[in-house]
Every structure is written in C-alpha cells, then in structure tokens.
C-alpha cells in the first residue's frame, strides 16, 4: 500500500488533520520553515486542535532555542550529529512569546542568489533530470548559473538541456560521480557552489536559503534538509523510516572543531553533516584543499565523496552548517533490488572513505570505526532484526555486510591507497571559458 505525503502548515492554525485510507507521512511547516515529520496509521487520525497545537509548541520551542536572538545561534552537533540543545535558563524564563518572535522564525528573505553556481551531475536519467531542472528554473532567487554535468557516454542529457536556455551543459565522459562533480566545480564561476542530484526537486526558496546561510556565517559548507518526495513502495519506506533516510532533523546544527576533536579518536561521524543531494561549498575551499576524491563516490568505491570533503574541512580547521531551511525533495529508490544495491554501495563507499581519511591524516579513529564499531553495529542491527522480527531489516543488513567486506579489501590494496585522486581546482578567473 502506498503512503500519502501531506504537507501541513501549522502557522495556519489548522484544527484537524483527517484520516485517509492509507498511512500518511506528515511534514509539518511554519510557513516556509520545516519543523519536522511524523508518520501515522489511519487509526491514529484524526489529529485535532489540542494535538496540532501541542505539536506546534514542541517544534517551535526547538526552533526558538536554536534560532532566536539571545540563544547563542545554531546549536553545536553532538557526536551523533544531533543538535545539542541547552538554552540558558534565564533567557527561557524571561522570554516573552510575541507574534514578532514567531514571524521572525520564517522571515521571508529573498536574497539575490547571483553568487551561486548550481551543479547537477546526471547519468542516463533524462526524465528525472527534466523535473529537476524545472524546479531549478522557478527559484525565488534564481542562481547565477546552472551547470549540468553529463556523466553518460552517450550524452543522454544533452537534448534535455536544450530546453533550458539558462543551463550550461558539460560532458564528463570518464565515469564516476566525483569526476563529474570536479568537472562542474572547475567550470563554475561563482564564489558559492551548490550540488543537487538529478532525482531531486528543490524547494522554490532553496538557492536563496543557501546564499543566506553563507552570508550569515563563516562556514565552508552548508547542507540542507532532504524530504522524501514519495513513499509509494516498501523499499522507499524502509529507506526513510528504518535506515533514517538522508536525516530528518529540522534544527540548524553547527559541525565545528568541538564536534571534530571530541569524536576524532573514534572516527568522526561526518556523514551526519548532510547529504550529497543537498550540499554547498565556498568555491575557494576547493582551491585550497582540492576537489572530490575520485576514488570515492558512485561509479568508483560507491559513495561518501561528500562526507570525505566534510572530513577534510573539519580536519583543516573549518566548520560546516546544517541549515534545514534549504529544502529539497528526493525520489528514493523504488525497488528492493535498487535499495539493496544502494545500501551495499553506501557501506562499501563508507569504508573506502574511512581508509582515505585515515591515510590522509593518520587519524586512527577511522580504522577503529571499520574494525570495531561497524562490526558492533552489524551485531546490534542483527539483534534488533531478530528481537523485533524484521526480516527486511535482516536483508538490508546482509547487503551492508557485503558492502563492508568489499570496503575492507581497499585496506589491503596499497596501489589503491597510494593513488593520487584529488585534483587541484584553479580560481575561476585564471581559466579560459
């Protein structure tokens, strides 16, 4: 049975959320500010005034504590990526809840996004790409440029791009998502570079919010919220509900030196910073530390080319900001086969990235994660699958273990480990067009 996805704006003070025939995944908003999501069986509905009001109060309390002036800015990340909420008691006690305070939370700012390059890497998926480019074409703050990097051998994206006059088409014939991303970065001309995927539709305020987040802080990278676009198939639901999707936190969270130093000895859990489907960087970061590692990512080891960049940022003293105001909608894999392949690739890529991170900085925590924490995680997940009788979790777990074994092979491959794979990126004004 397919689930409905309902978007409910609590700012409109709704008094009822009615039941349908199937379960619903409700995404709660305060105007354009995402607040959180919850899934309900039909029997759990309707929700009436008191529950909607209580939900709004709970969500807004967190938003006020992490965004309102006087509360010290975005909370810092805990080891597991969760925002550490500890609002000062005096502020809380004295706070007067006014309309101004609440409307400030979803302040409709439309900054100019001309300084933003958006890069979409695609490979043989012309139809989703068209949907993706449609969404990028109707941004409140249109980005300065949109680059499509076609990673297919047959240039399958070229004809789609012809229908979007503002899109610059690039072709990177050698396969690998990292290579495609680097090709896009090298060709970009703006000081900020954002990535999204071809299976994503961005929110109309997405590019504006990314620029705003960079303007408001000194971070090197901004990531945002990934909301499922559909939950029609069981594979999509397992990915979102059981595997945590691409994260669902709606609190701005700062990943900085505290996070890094506290967790380095046990392998910093950098993947909590965000998702490659919704991430942005200052271009000069790439000029400083190079591009994406071409041993990693889809088409190579599997994934984690995104989190490895965040690791390099943190290891070289920079900060990252997760800002869920920047929203995208992602189409998860629909079929079991695709999900299983994806989970295997994720785990393989994850282990490969840990090897790379270890080799680059000699941080032994990364090996600890491969050899101690991940086996422990497999045991716990296996126990959970048995204890709570979840056969599908067991199936996914087997794929993860296979992926882990594939990743561990990299550990014993000195050729792979010593291969130079991070290209340098030149400043935009020094290259020809």
């Amino acid at each position, binding site marked *: 049975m397919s689930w409905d996805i309902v978007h409910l704006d609590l700012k409109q*003070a709704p*008094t009822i959320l009615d039941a349908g025939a199937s*379960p619903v995944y409700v995404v709660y908003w305060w105007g354009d500010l995402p607040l959180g999501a919850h*899934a*309900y*069986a*039909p*029997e*759990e509905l309707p929700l*009436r*005034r*008191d*529950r*909607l*009001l*209580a939900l*709004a*109060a*709970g969500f*807004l*309390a*967190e938003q*006020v*504590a992490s965004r309102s002036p006087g509360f010290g800015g975005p909370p810092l990340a805990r080891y597991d990526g969760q925002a550490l*909420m*500890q*609002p*000062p*008691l005096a502020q*809380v*006690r004295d*706070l007067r*809840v006014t309309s101004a305070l609440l409307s400030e939370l979803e302040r409709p700012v439309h900054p100019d996004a001309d300084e933003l390059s958006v890069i979409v890497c695609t490979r043989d998926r012309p139809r989703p790409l068209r949907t993706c480019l449609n969404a990028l074409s109707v941004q409140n703050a249109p980005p300065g440029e949109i680059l499509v990097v076609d990673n297919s051998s047959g240039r399958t994206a070229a004809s789609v791009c012809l229908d979007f006059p503002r899109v610059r088409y690039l072709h990177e014939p050698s396969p690998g998502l990292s290579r495609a991303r680097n090709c896009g970065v090298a060709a970009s001309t703006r000081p900020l570079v954002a990535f999204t995927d071809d299976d994503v539709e961005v929110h109309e305020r997405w590019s504006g919010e990314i620029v705003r987040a960079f303007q408001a802080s000194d971070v090197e990278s901004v990531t945002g919220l990934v909301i499922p676009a559909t939950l029609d198939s069981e594979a999509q639901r397992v990915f979102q*509900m059981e595997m945590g999707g691409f994260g669902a936190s709606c609190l701005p969270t700062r990943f900085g030196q505290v996070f890094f130093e506290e967790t380095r000895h046990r392998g910093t859990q950098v993947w909590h910073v965000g998702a490659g489907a919704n991430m942005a960087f200052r271009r000069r970061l790439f000029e400083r530390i190079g591009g994406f590692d071409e041993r990693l990512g889809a088409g190579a080891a599997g994934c984690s080319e995104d989190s490895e960049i965040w690791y390099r940022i943190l290891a070289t003293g920079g900060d990252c900001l997760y800002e869920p105001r920047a929203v995208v909608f992602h189409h998860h894999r629909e079929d079991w086969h695709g999900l299983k392949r994806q989970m295997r690739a994720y785990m393989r890529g994850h282990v490969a990235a840990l090897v790379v991170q270890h080799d680059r900085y000699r941080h032994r925590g990364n090996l600890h994660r491969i050899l101690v924490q991940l086996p422990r995680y497999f045991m716990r997940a296996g*126990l959970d699958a*048995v*204890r*709570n*009788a979840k056969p599908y979790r067991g199936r996914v777990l087997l794929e993860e273990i296979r992926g882990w074994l594939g990743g561990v092979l990299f550990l014993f491959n000195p050729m792979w480990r010593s291969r130079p794979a991070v290209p340098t990126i030149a400043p935009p004004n020094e290259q020809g067009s």
Partner: protein
Amino acid sequence: MPYRIMDLELSRPLTGFTLASHETGYALVVRWDGRIIGFLMKETPEGFRMEEDELRELLERELALRILNVKLEGSLADRWPATPVLEPPSLTIAICTKDRAARLARLLDSLEAVRGQSAFRALEILVVDNASVDPDTREVAESRTDVCYRFEPKTGLDFARNMALETATGDLIAYLDDDVVVDRGWLSGLYRVWADCPDAGGYSGLVLPYRLDTPAQIRFEREGGFGRGFERIHHRGAQLGNPLHPVGAGVVGAGANMCFRRDLLLALGGFDEALDTGAPLPGGGDLDIFYRVLRSGHAIVYEPSYAVFHEHRETMAQLRRQYWSWGLGFMAFLEKARRTDPAMRRRQDAMVSWWFRDKLISLAGALSALDLRRAGDLAAELRGAIQGLLGEYDRSVARSRRIREQVA
C-alpha cells in the same frame, strides 16, 4: 539511605540545596507555574551540596526546552480557533481499598486539598471497602463529609472496581489505588485533558514516587518506575511502526491512576473479575481494560499533569514479588485476550514471543554484567510469565467463581 524528594518551582529564583548526612541522593519534582514538567533523580554522596550553578546547568540540559514548550503552548492557544465549550461532566473518584486505613486517610486528605478547584459539574468520592477485616477503613471513610462508603464482600480488586462502576453516578469515573496521594494539579489536569479530548474513552496519568526511602523503592524507580513521560500521549487501537500495539497495553498507563467514561465501561461489561483476584493473581486488570477500551475504537489519553505519588514496595522481597506478578498478570491477560479477541491473534502471539525474547536478552545482559539482583528480578518475571501461560487464567476464573459462590 533515603533520597530526598523535593519540589522545585522554576518560575521562582533558583537556589542550591544541601542534603542531610544520611541522605544518599535527591529526586526533584520540577514544575513550571505549578505544572509538573519533569522528574530528575540521582544518587549522590551523603550530605551532598548542590550548588546553584550546577543545578542551573542540570536544568538547562534537561528541562529548559520543556519550559519553552509550555510557554509556547500557552501563547499559541490564542492563535488557534477555540473549540466550542461543552457542558462539564460529573466525576466520581473511586478508591478501592483493603485494610489500609492510614493510607486511605492520607489519600482523602490530598483529595480534600484539591476538590475545591473542581471545574466538573459535580464531584463524588466513593470509597469501596474490599472486604476489610478491621473496621478502621469504614471509620475513616465515614468520618469525612462528602465521602460515600460501600462495602464489597468479594475479595478481589476488580470486584471492588465493578462495585464502584455500578454505584457511581458520575459521567467519568477516576480510579485511584489506596497507596497513592494526588498531586495538587491532579484534578485540574484531569479536567484539562477531558476538555481537550472529550471524545476519548479514558485518561491515564503520571505516577511518581511518594517516598524513596528504601533500596527497593529507589531501585524500582531507577528501573523506570511507572513513568510514562511528561508529554501528553494519545493512544489508539493502532500505531504505525509498532506491530504489537495495542497488545502491549501497559504503555498506556497504570491502574493506580486511570479514568474512564462510565457509560463506555458499562457497555464493555466492566472489569474482568477473574484478574486481580488478590494473592494468587495480583494483576492484569488494568491491562485488560486499557486493551478493551482501545479495541472498542476509543482513545486513551495520557496526561502528565493528572499526577499522583505512589508508595512503592518497601522491601526487595516485595519488589521481586511484584516483578513476578507482572509477568504472571501480563500473560494471564494475553491468554484471555487470545480467547476473546481472535482477530488480534497474530499480534498476541507475536507479543508473547517478543516478550520472551526481550526478557531473555535482558537476562543475558544482566548476567554478563554480573548484576545478579537485576537477573533475579528478570528471572522472577519470567517465572511468573511461564506460570501465567500454563493455565493461570483458567484457574483464576474458577477462583473468582468460588469467591462469588462463597459470598452468595
């Protein structure tokens, strides 16, 4: 040995505190504007001094967000369209008791302190004396004004609860065990949850410890006690992602503090008198009624400000017996549910196997951590559960029939 239990009102200025030299821990009942928003307990060295700064940091970490939440709820209420005001229902407070006159008097005192604020249309306090041997119970009840006294000669908590159900006059009936006292927010909390959710079939409330004087009481509370949290929870007949709900009816609340629509309970046939028959099967009746209310399509709403303080078991032997009785009562309830509600058969079976897997894994954990006391408690619970599965419900049905015949 004892922990000091303190009330801490956060809307007033904060001050540190010093424990007495024999006190080995503290438990804070934290309030904002009188409303309970949290409960924090911790073991400390004897005579521990809690400095103001340390206390503030603890509260900021644990509860500051909760205060914001309460404040926002208050101010958002003005933005939301108001719901039409219904006529308040009448309420019967039913206390079932047996040979515990002193505790009954204590509970009646606490009710006396809150009944003045009642917003209900009418309020009745009903003491059901469940075959007490000594006459003190009757004397305590009859010495009070506005307290009705009934005698139920059939021994068994659910006989008494049904007697209360039949003689009560209220639209709602709130059951209290005799080993609790009510919080000052108890009655207004119950009224508020009714006003917000008038179509629910029942309400359950927070149960906090009344004393933490003995190792058994501290241990029980540390293992989770009766705590169901500090936010309102709506329970219905299904819950997404929980394939065992509503068979695990214990999450709904505790029999020591629960309230129902009286017409609904009458329509459902009241409590099952074969459960809670005293010593041989001292539990399960609350699980059974929660389950049947949820299965009838009605919601049960848990409201934390509808709170009582419960006198936990004093000795380790009593506590171990309680674990045993939970295993026993739960399985007796499941056995009954299997027979009367075959539509849920798969969930009931899944619950039995989940429960045993869960307890066995916990037992293995306790043994490997060399926590023999915990292992013993788990073993007692498992022993009770096995006994419960081996025909305890049938024995209990026979027992309750004998009790009925003896009295007749």
